[in-house]
């Protein structure tokens, strides 16, 4: 995918770019984006989406502009993955949705110099 407005600099912009890319990706596959950058004291959930089959998906997005620091998803340690799970439960509790089926997903976005990017989406990583 080529994109004209490649982020200029800064990790924040890069991150936002990646999250939008993943949100686009999910929408195109028929999911509804329910929440973005939902933040509480314990941390942040990048994307909350309702999948076509009714499941709630909590997505952690990792964006990188090069592979030289390893695969983006490698930076998600076990500890981080479990924090995601706690955050997911917290989100469900606050939205009166406890008991609904949900899953934790991860997405890796790799942006190259010419502004093209790839999305690697892994479902149910826990």
């Amino acid at each position, binding site marked *: 995918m080529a994109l004209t407005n490649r982020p200029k600099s800064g990790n924040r912009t890069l991150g936002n770019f990646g999250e939008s890319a993943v949100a686009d990706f999910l929408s195109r596959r028929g999911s509804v984006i329910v929440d973005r950058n939902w933040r509480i004291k314990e941390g942040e959930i990048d994307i909350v989406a309702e999948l076509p089959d009714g499941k709630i998906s909590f997505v952690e997005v990792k964006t990188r502009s090069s592979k030289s620091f390893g695969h983006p998803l*490698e930076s998600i340690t076990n500890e981080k993955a479990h924090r995601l799970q706690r955050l997911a439960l917290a989100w469900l509790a606050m939205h009166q949705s406890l008991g609904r089926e949900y899953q934790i997903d991860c997405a890796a976005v790799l942006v190259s110099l010419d502004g093209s990017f790839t999305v690697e989406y892994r479902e149910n*990583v826990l």
Partner: protein
Amino acid sequence: MTLGESLGVALVGLDGQLVRVEVDIADGLPGYVLLGLPDAALTESRDRVRSALVNSSENWPNRKVTVSLSPAWLPKSGSSFDLPIAIALLAAQSVIPEERSAQTLYLGELSLDGHIRGVRGVLPSLISAHKQGITTAVVPEANAVEAQLMREMKIIPMGHLRDLLRWLRLGQRAENEELQYSSPPDEKIFDFADVAGQERARVAAEVAAVGGHHLLLIGPPGAGKTMIAQRLPGILPALSRDEALEVTAIHSIAGGLSNRSPLASSPPFVAPHHSATRVAMVGGGSHVIKPGACSLAHRGVLFIDEAPECGIGVLDSLRQPLESGSITIARAIGNVTYPARFLLVLAANPCPCGKFSGRGRNCICSSHQVRRYLGKLSGPLMDRIDLRVQVDPLSRVELMASDLGESSEKIRARVIAARKVAAERFKNEEWSLNSHIPSRALRTTYQPERVAMNFLHTELDREHITARGLHKIIRTAWSLADLSGHARPTLADTEQAFLLREGLAS
């Protein structure tokens, strides 16, 4: 296909167990789990394998990788699993053909750039794998010479992961990768011709070589005790192929093949320093039970210089292997039995200052010190030593003599001939060396001539020798008889055997 497998070997002592390495690549966060009781070196394999794969232009799966080493209950150690793990990983990604990789044994450590490094214990691993029906093995190039001893298997030495993968994918190998059967090296032996004088010690060494009798040399520093001991392997018969295989296997596990060619057929000579610990002597270790000096000297000579200086219990720990020809080491991870049938040569000074010999004019030790010094050797260990010889300082005449002593080659020819006679005599028995004749057989079939027995009985009555000593003397007498061509030990043979054992007691 996200499952891949290959074969490695886990060694416990000399016995190897085939280990099936299975790799599963599953979706999920990138991660790596190694199952099957790995030790620290093996746990680190993850990072070596990863770098080696990436630097050989292969793909590292950024997914959840589970590696299982089965049987899972067996503790595994060492770096030789790097290669089978790498192969199973590639098989799981379906980038190498399955049929070629699954029934081949892989041994080798990977360096970060993909080179395959040598590992310990290649020969015993191959022997065990062959017994379990494996016919093809990939070994590190550095271990190729050792591996070629296993002629019953197809051995493929590889120097780099990239070469190995090319072979797996295309069946092609660079021509220099064909296994070159190198011939055994010319072994330099120390020659007995270098030893001036020392007639008694020479005879004792020859008798020791014929019958496998253990030897104690007592003499002042500089008299030539070490020279004589070093020359003993040179007059022993060369090892048979099976024996050489056994010896190389033990040395391969100890990782000490560097100073001994894997193809060597000369009996090993092992000389641990007298500060050696019991574990160094008999073997041990916590997660890898390594053979000790007495197993490294298997089918060869174990020489301990300054024997009375050895720590308490170190020499006595040799009693079990002296008796049974093997040593069983028990540790938390299991029991391991190593063969340990060696010729023991002890050397000692006559006293702490070393000058108490001849007229002992310059000795500065008290009589109490002198007695205590050699007293450390007494007891059950000394009882197992058939030959105890005084090595006196050389006289002027001996040192001036310009003709060299007899060469090792000539002595060895006599030793081999005498051993042949003994082997013929013992062809229906369970033993083949004179020093192994059981006492029961000595009292019946293998008695010396009547006059010789009378002589021994008189000495026994005078309490000059014990009953065990009597049997030891007869065994030595048999070796002397074999050397001099007597069908049965004569009075002269027996008297000489008596002198060789008891000569120092007076």
